Every structure is written in C-alpha cells, then in structure tokens.
C-alpha cells in the first residue's frame, strides 16, 4: 500500500495489465491465492519475485509456477484453464475433493475472478449470460465465490456499449450472493462494504463523475 504513489498510474482508463498490477500490489506477502481463468491469470505476472504468494489451482495444486514455455510443456501439469504450467519448489498436489474442500472451507486468502456484473450488495454474476442459446458452464466459480476469505473482481467498469457492470442488482444469473469484497476496474477500484460502495481510487475520472455514469451512490475512500 505504501507503494501506491509509485505504482499506480493516475491516468485512465487502465489496460488489463495495469489492473492486474494493481491487484498484485494489494495481495499481502505470503498469501494463498487463486486466480480465475482468463484475465485474472495476468496478476501472476505482476507479483514480485519475493512476494511469497502461493498460487492455488483448483485442479489440485498449490505453489503453481508460471505458464510452461517451449520444452517445459507437460500434459499432466495444467492450470484450471487447461494451460500447461510449471511447478515451484514446495508445491503440493491433491485430488479434486481435497482441492475444493480447501476452497470451500475458507482456506484461500484471496481469489480473483472476472465478472459480467457485480451488485452493490456484492452479488457476483460471472458464469452465465442467461441467453437462451448459451450452454451453461459454471466450473469452479461458485465454489471460489463462496469460499475464499476475500473475493476480488477484475473487470472493465462498462461493457463495450457503455452499460455499467457495477449495478444495483444483477440481471444475469448469479454466481454467489454477497460474496465480492473488492472490484478492480479500468476506471476505479471499489470496496463493497456494509455501508455501500466505497471508491478506493479513480483513474482519469472522479467519484462524482462515476456516480453519475453508474447512477449509484458512491462513498469516498475510507482510508
């Protein structure tokens, strides 16, 4: 946190790598973390080498290393997105029931998930668009949403057509109720609190401007 001034770009909107860097900055030393499929995996690239952060992958591994390069690919060693990865010293393998017991039992410090929508109550929608022709696929998203001690969401704040993704109530099918703690976006970082949505930082915009565009009451940062 004391590195904020150094690392945080003040101009916005941020790119996905900038958002990933912000999230990496906020992950405490030695935390056990699950990075969801897709953009959240970028967070790993921004963790300092001495962070001591241990990555969990729900297909049964702790202390997962970076994506495998040429010559390192082992079909028996992939992440949850089926991407070949590597193993760090101190790794451990376990089966799926143990892996999800770990997740659901509240042992992960943080998970980072993508989202279609997050509500002011911290409801998360990230698994299903609800479109009639969509094939539903949930994977481990519901387990991560209810299991991790802290759930961080990484997303753009608006869809490409300008519709807010931080909303009074989710219109897409839910992944979990009241489970999101913090939302990292290209325009701001938000905390979901019992008092309402609090803005931690903004990037190239203001709290007032965001409140208007989102049509939501926003609280200033609480420090």
């Amino acid at each position, binding site marked *: 946190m004391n590195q904020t001034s150094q690392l945080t770009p003040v101009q916005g909107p941020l790119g996905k790598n900038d958002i990933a860097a912000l999230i990496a900055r906020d992950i405490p030393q030695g935390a056990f973390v699950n990075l969801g499929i897709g953009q959240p995996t970028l967070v790993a690239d921004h963790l300092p080498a001495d962070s001591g952060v241990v990555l969990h*992958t729900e*297909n049964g591994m702790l202390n997962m290393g970076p994506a495998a390069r040429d010559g390192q690919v082992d079909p028996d060693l*992939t992440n949850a997105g089926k991407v070949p990865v590597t193993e760090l010293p101190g790794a451990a393998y376990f089966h*799926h029931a143990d892996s999800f017991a770990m997740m659901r039992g509240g042992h992960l410090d943080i998970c980072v998930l993508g989202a279609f929508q997050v509500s002011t109550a911290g409801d998360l929608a990230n698994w299903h668009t609800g479109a009639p022709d969509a*094939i539903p*696929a949930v994977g*481990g998203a519901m387990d991560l949403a209810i299991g991790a001690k802290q759930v961080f969401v990484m997303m753009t704040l608006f869809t490409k057509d300008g519709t807010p993704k931080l909303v009074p109530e989710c219109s897409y099918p839910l992944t979990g109720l009241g489970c999101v703690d913090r939302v990292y976006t290209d325009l701001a970082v938000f905390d979901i609190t019992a008092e309402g949505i609090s803005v931690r930082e903004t990037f190239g915009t203001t709290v007032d401007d965001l409140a208007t565009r989102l049509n939501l009451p926003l609280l200033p940062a609480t420090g």
Partner: protein
Amino acid sequence: MSMQLCDHADEAVADVEDGSTVLVGGFGMAGMPVELIDALIRQGATDLTVVSNNAGNGDTGLAALLAKGRVRKVVCSFPRQADSYVFDELYRAGKIDLEVVPQGNLAERMRAAGAGIGAFYCPTGAGTLLAEGKETRVIDGRTYVLEYPIKGDVALIGAHRADRMGNLVYRKTARNFGPVMATAATTVIAQVREVVDTGALDPEAVVTPGIFVDRVVQEADRA
C-alpha cells in the same frame, strides 16, 4: 476383492451395461482414460449417463463417445470449451441432457457416495439458478443447499502407476478426479502407464489404495 489385471482395455470394459452411470476421470485431457473410453466405444454400451468435469474435447475420447450417440445425459461442471463442438452440437439439437453441477459439488457429491454420506449441506450455489428447487437450510446464519451423492456403476480413470494389488499413484495435476471417482463407483477400472511389482510403491505416497480398484490395464502404447 482382489484386483484383476487385464491384458487389454476391451477386457476391462467388457461388462459395462446399457443405461449405466459412468464416472469418467480427467480434467481436460490430463488424467483422461482415453484407451478405456475407446474400448467402451468398441464395446457398444449405450444410453449412458456420463459424469465428468467436461463434456469432451475435440473428436477423441469422451467427445468420440458422445459423437456415437451413446450418451443420454452428461453431468459436468464445464461443458462449454473452445473445442467442445461435439457436445455443443448435440446439446443445441436437443439430443443430449445436461446437468451442470458446480465443480466442488461434483467432487464432493462423489466423495459422499464413496464415504457413505447420505446428503450434505453445502454453501456453494446458494441463491443461484443451480440451487433452484433444492432444499436449503440456514446454519449459524449461513444458507446451505442440500446436496445428494453421485454414485457410478462404473468409473473409468487414468493413473500413473499401479502395483499388482491395485494401489495407484497419479502424476501432477492429472490426479484431479481419479481418486474421488475410485471411491464412488461399483466397478472401478484404471488405465495406467505402468504396472509395477507389489512393494514398489511407497506406502506413504499411495493415493488410491487397492481396495477401491477392481481392474487395471496398462496403456497399450506403453505395454
């Protein structure tokens, strides 16, 4: 009773009956018992319910079984993948039933079947589409969904090594669902890369004890 070492995958799956529930190991291709699935295709059993994390990749393995029209229903967490076109087409044509289960529930429901648990209260999915119609209960202020065991008639799993008592070890994240499925089916059939002498596996590192394993077949391309 004692494990049967089969010479060929065809022998191992010879008695699978029409209408069976078949648990199929693997997460993507890691741990997928491809030779056993190919043998099941040759064997011809149909009207199957397949329980697996995914609904097949590309044209081989589970996807090939689906393509032959042998599967009535898929129970899985994540059918939709980049290369799940066989399933996608069957599903959109209304030719296959789908039960989407959160990945942790899939694992835990099979564990329950193997552990003699009649049902369990689980936080995953509470308040979502996937818990609709299910019994819920508030325990210590948290809402839980009542989930029932998933039991297989047959489990087809992939492992790394077996000894002659059926003790199994896996390799890296290819472990995934194998150990849980091995506890949850009436007949458990493992495809392994190598069969070693009894006593050659470290008793501290055996993941699936032989008590769970009915038949073992060494992969043909390694025999």
